[in-house]
């Protein structure tokens, strides 16, 4: 019987990618848990399976085997549309290379996750501006992404990830394209979000990130070592 005491529980997780006759074991076997308000650094080299793990935790990638429970909810027993709603409500994604929509302004990019929620326009605006202020870009809310520096674009990505106030923030190599000073600023921002109650999970190969995390999980050859 599964005892659900943690925010995220992963049991017997396996993921195999198959292309023709070629099979790749991206995740061989993983079992671990993450508690509420933790700041987890998932460390591993390129090809270790950490990004696959992140996408599975983000309800984006169906595992080949195993179970992932978030707040007692078995993610992959949900329909695709229910998982979309789950992502909207529970998850804030921060992607490597920022991944902002180039034709939308900072404000519009931050409001993007709210396009499918039922809030009123005024509330959406208020929430988005609040998040933009939080990441220190209050004066640049009407600029387009290509009018911002790399660090500023990453801040917009963070604001977009937290605008719906999701309990979990998943960040994939958030400092990968930033200089060390800007990377430190972003990590401090994530740390402050963690202190505000968000559970932050960062996937990275950068050993320096460990210093900001409350706990780290090492991923190697599709297996994890807590």
């Amino acid at each position, binding site marked *: 019987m599964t005892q659900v005491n943690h925010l995220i529980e992963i049991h017997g997780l396996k993921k195999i990618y198959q292309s023709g006759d070629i099979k790749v074991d991206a995740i061989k076997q993983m079992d671990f848990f993450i508690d509420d308000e933790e700041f987890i650094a998932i460390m591993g080299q390129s090809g270790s399976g950490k990004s696959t793990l992140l996408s599975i935790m983000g309800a984006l990638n169906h595992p080949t085997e195993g179970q992932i429970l978030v707040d007692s909810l078995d993610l992959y027993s949900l329909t695709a*549309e229910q998982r*979309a*709603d789950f992502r909207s409500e529970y998850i804030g*994604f921060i992607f490597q290379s920022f991944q902002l929509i180039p*034709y939308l302004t900072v404000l519009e990019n931050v*409001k*993007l996750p709210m*396009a*499918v929620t039922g809030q009123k326009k005024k509330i959406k605006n208020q929430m988005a501006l609040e998040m933009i202020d939080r990441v220190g870009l209050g004066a640049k809310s009407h600029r387009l992404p290509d009018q911002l520096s790399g660090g500023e674009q990453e801040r917009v990505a963070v604001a977009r990830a937290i605008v719906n106030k999701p309990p979990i923030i998943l960040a994939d190599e958030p400092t990968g394209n930033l200089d060390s000073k800007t990377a430190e600023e972003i990590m401090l921002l994530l740390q402050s979000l963690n202190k505000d109650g968000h559970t932050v999970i960062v996937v990275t190969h950068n050993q320096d990130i460990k210093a900001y995390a409350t706990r780290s999980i090492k991923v190697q050859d599709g297996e994890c070592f807590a």
Partner: protein
Amino acid sequence: MKLHNISFGNIKRRKGKMFFLVLGLVIGISTVVTLLSITQTMTRNIEERLNQFGANIVMVPKSENLSLNYGGIDVGGVSYKVREFDQEQLEDIKTIKNYKNLSIIAPKVLGPVTVNGKNVLLMGVLFEEELALKTWWHKTGGTFPEKENEVMLGSQIATLLGFKTGGIINLSGNSFKVATILKPTGASEDDAIIASLGASQRLLGKEDKLSMVEISAFCQGCPISEMTLQIAEKFPNAKVTAMKQAVMSKMQSIDMFKSFSLGVSIIVILIGSLLVLVTMMGSVNERTREIGIFRAIGFRSGHVMQIILLEAMLLGIIGGILGFVIGNLIAYGIIPVMIKDGAFAGINANLGIVSIFMAVALSLLASLYPAFKASNMDPSEALRAL
């Protein structure tokens, strides 16, 4: 932030691609509008000619004898007994299915009368109907007859008998005033005395009898041959003939042109739709990354579909409006060149509405597959492009 903001933003950003998509729709819609305008003008042109020609259905009593007359030249020298209808029977024409399409019914009585010892043709008519039918009748002076004791002379007979407008003519012992003389028409009326139907019937001793009826049927795409059959069924003793075969064959040519236009329109619209499909597919493929982000931040597949279809709808509206305007401009320019005496029939608002709806429908149909593909994109696959 709403889904339509994303659609608007994408249209603004990908102006080049969207231009080609709209171009596909504009080519399709403008071709349809141009061809429809041309056929509309051609039809109107032919109908105007039909109207100018006067009667297009003639009803005469059935005779077993063959005519020995061609182009007004009688070669037989044999006078057949002229048969008539009862005037009362003419009321039955009102019971045919297409009666409302019969714009003018002009009954006549014909017979010989004596003027200065010569036999001449007297034609009794209902002047109001006859003048509406024979729009090419022009008087030389005076007025068209309004009273029972007034007559109108054909140009030839007036010259031969030496009568002038205002003069008095004696027809078989009865005096009539010459109200006017017709200008030459080149037809039978040049040799006839034309009097009111009632007076003529009395003079000829043919009370309540009719020698022939000329009918003008006029409406857009009237089934003349069908109406001829309907009349023939009601009047079994009459020979009912549809006239102006040449004009009718022109109508057939228009029908052929209409079929051709339809064929061309379908092909052009298919090509236009293909252009929309290819452009939309390209747009969706280019936006894999974007769609991945949308899906990752909680957009349902239906939301992605809405974004793509909304774009298609907006571009359909633009394509429909532009296609309608350009189609009308082409028609305006091309019609005077293509059709002799042809003038642009004018802007048809209904066609405008249909054009916009058609463009939107085409754009949506052609975008359905790309939208479906985008909405069903596996988010993890889409995110691998990140």
